[in-house]
């Protein structure tokens, strides 16, 4: 068991986790900037949250501290609440204007 756990820390250096998380986060940002479908923008936000979660879990494992994994747990709770309310808002918007194009939602802009 000790051998296995020693191997796990040597799976990849921390920099690789940082680069992977940065890549996933940038993909999420790119999705928000690129698409006009509100639901796909929402999914890109989920991708960004997951990039943060992965980096927190990696830091927690490399630092041998459980606090990072608890933070990931809380971020998952917040993401679940966010998706429930956000999708309700999207359904309501669709009911009112029959579109989920983000350019239709510019009533608050001046």
């Amino acid at each position: 068991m000790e051998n296995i756990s020693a191997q796990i820390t040597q799976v990849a250096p921390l920099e690789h986790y940082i680069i992977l998380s940065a890549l996933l986060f940038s993909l999420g940002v790119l999705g928000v900037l690129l698409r006009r479908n509100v639901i796909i923008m929402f999914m890109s936000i989920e991708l960004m949250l997951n990039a943060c979660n992965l980096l927190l879990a990696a830091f927690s494992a490399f630092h041998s501290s459980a606090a990072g994994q608890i933070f990931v747990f809380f971020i998952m709770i917040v993401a679940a609440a966010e998706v429930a309310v956000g999708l309700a808002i999207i359904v309501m918007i669709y009911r009112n204007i029959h579109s989920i194009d983000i350019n239709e939602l510019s009533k608050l802009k001046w």
Partner: protein
Amino acid sequence: MTQFLFYFLSFVAVAAGLMVITAKNPVHSVLYLIIAFFAIAGHYILLNAQFLAIVHIIVYAGAIMVLFLSVIMLLNLNKDNEPAKSNVLKLAAAVAAGLLLVTFTGTLKGTESIIAAQPYDDQIGYVKALGKVLFNDFLLPFEVSALLLLSAIIGAVVLVKHDLK
């Protein structure tokens, strides 16, 4: 072997993420996002965070993505009627995201020297150790998150209800 697994899972996660934002059909986007989530769950297992991996699959692939799919089916959005953005905007978005990537890797690359070489503890990802930390040090945030979920339920019902007096 595990090293190969890390790079394979990273490739799957990034490729699936790329497909999420390029797929025309929203249903395909959801399915690619589920693949990305499973790859990230594999990363959690590699990091010896078994509890997180299971919770991640249950919450994300099980609950959140089903919610997405049901909303897409409900709104009948599975046809690609999304007007395309102009090429200049697409290029600007790609440049902005690339600059963000450079900034993130540049700022975070210095942090690995801060992480001291701690003795590795392979027990922290298990339910027993995490539960002790969660219910001792993080009891108040845990209770507050319960309130958050309750308010999210009430908010979602209030938002989609037709005639609220």
